[in-house]
């Protein structure tokens, strides 16, 4: 199921998400995080080298990539610490009736 503008896709139940997990939407890996500030979704693959952010630790609104420690803001995907120099995509999240939804938008390279 894909559309030009964002489509809300249910990816997991709240109960499944303890601290972090990885879900796949149309072959694309997305990391979900539960933090004191809320539930967030970022591209799972670190922008520095291949590594899964869903396996990283979360501190003060940032996720630390387990491979080399690159930091990304959970809310925006912005890079907040080296060695990564490029952001990762942040996905809008909503929670309805105990289910976690992500606004999915397939971006084709032009």
């Amino acid at each position, binding site marked *: 199921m894909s559309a030009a503008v964002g489509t809300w896709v249910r990816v997991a139940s709240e109960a499944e998400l303890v601290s972090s997990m990885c879900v796949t939407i149309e072959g694309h890996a997305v990391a979900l995080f539960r933090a004191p500030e809320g539930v967030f979704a970022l591209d799972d693959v670190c922008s520095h080298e291949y590594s899964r952010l869903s396996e990283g630790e979360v501190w003060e609104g940032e996720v630390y990539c387990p491979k080399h*420690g690159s930091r990304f803001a959970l809310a925006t995907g912005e890079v907040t610490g*080296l*060695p990564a120099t490029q952001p990762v995509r942040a996905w809008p999240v909503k929670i309805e009736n105990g289910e976690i939804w992500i606004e999915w938008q397939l971006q084709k390279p032009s």
Partner: protein
Amino acid sequence: MKSQAPATVDIGEYQHGFSFPDQSVFKTRKGLDEGVVNAISHAKNEPEWMRQFRLRSLRAFQKKSMPNWGADLSDINFDDLYYYARPTDEQKKSWDDVPAYIKETFERIGIPEAERKFLAGVGAQYDSEVVYHSIKEDLAKKGVIFTDPETAVREHPDVVKQYFGTVIPYLDNKFAALNSAVWSGGSFVYVPKGVKVDVPLQAYFRINARSFGQFERTLIIADEGSFVHYIEGCTAPIYATESLHSAVVEIIALPGSRVRYTTIQNWSNDVYNLVTKRALAHKDATVEWVDGNIGSKRTMKYPSIYLVGEGAHGEVLSIAFAGKGQEQDTGGKAVHAASHTSSIITAKSISKAGGVATYRGLLKVNEGLHDVRSRVVCDALILDERSRSNTFPYMEINSDKVSSEHEARVSKISEEQLFYLQSRGMSEQEASLMIVNGFLDPLVKQLPMEYAVELNRLIELEMEGTVG
């Protein structure tokens, strides 16, 4: 053939065979676990956030695996090292207050002279702790902070929290994690906006306790438009058991600033020297690493520059000398994350008597950039048949408006040059030395004079025994 006495060097100045019976007053037990880390944090009177940082780093160190590339590190036994010792109870301000045996050590490697003539301030380290520290008055007036990191954590927590561990995260690699857990001593430098520090800031370190590890941590912040030159040089006595030196150096060059960091490393030949050095260069900033590796049994060190602002420029000048039993695995990395940036990496190495000199480097250019220029030149001289040289450069270019060049050459001393110099009356040893000095000259020229002199003496000592 008549043998001639070595010309100008007084060999006596370079006896590394002296050491002092261990006067460390407080030392943790061997091995590394939470108890040791807590003891270190407690001994330094650290705030809770730093203690937590150390503990998280310890967990990362325990989880991470050793690198599966690079120099041979198989002999390191982490459980058999001491990770902390403190020789005196308080930081000294004046030279007169420093205990005699420490003074003697430093006098033998030349600090007082240097202090009088060249230095603005000295952070001298003995067994991990900064013992003696003085800051020249005018620097203090300009607002330049040059102190040890422990003092910085206590007196400038906001600045430290903002930058500490952001350039080299504790997860970066196993040895950065180790340093982040047990760091002790090093330097903290902050240069305010527009201030230019004319005289190089220097520090010395020593390893002295048997099986001791050195984990100094340096953080340099050059605020907008400022300039500072920091020099790091170290010597160590000879011990039979392995020594581990795992330092971390982070540099933040804010817009328009310039930082030069010079190192002459001459650890004795039982030391494992595994260092992570990285700089962040913002808009129009310049960072220069001048890195000389002469000693140690194994060195793995790749000073890096991340060019994250337009107009930033980075340079790495690297000299490596690999003699008998040594592996120098060094190089540099330049990561271009902004347009209109440039980088130059120049690496020269000499291998002799079975030594192995390896260049390892990375040039990376992110996507969507333009006007990026880079040049890497590696020159290796192999002095005899038993020695080796390797070159592993990685170039990852993801933008089209880029020009990058990489060149590497491997050779030996030219027969013709040797013959010519010998025909002018030089012995083969003198001629070889002259050629080697010529090979290194472009880099040596970049060093402050007393370092150039020290380096030349070191090379001369290393070259002895080359012939016959």
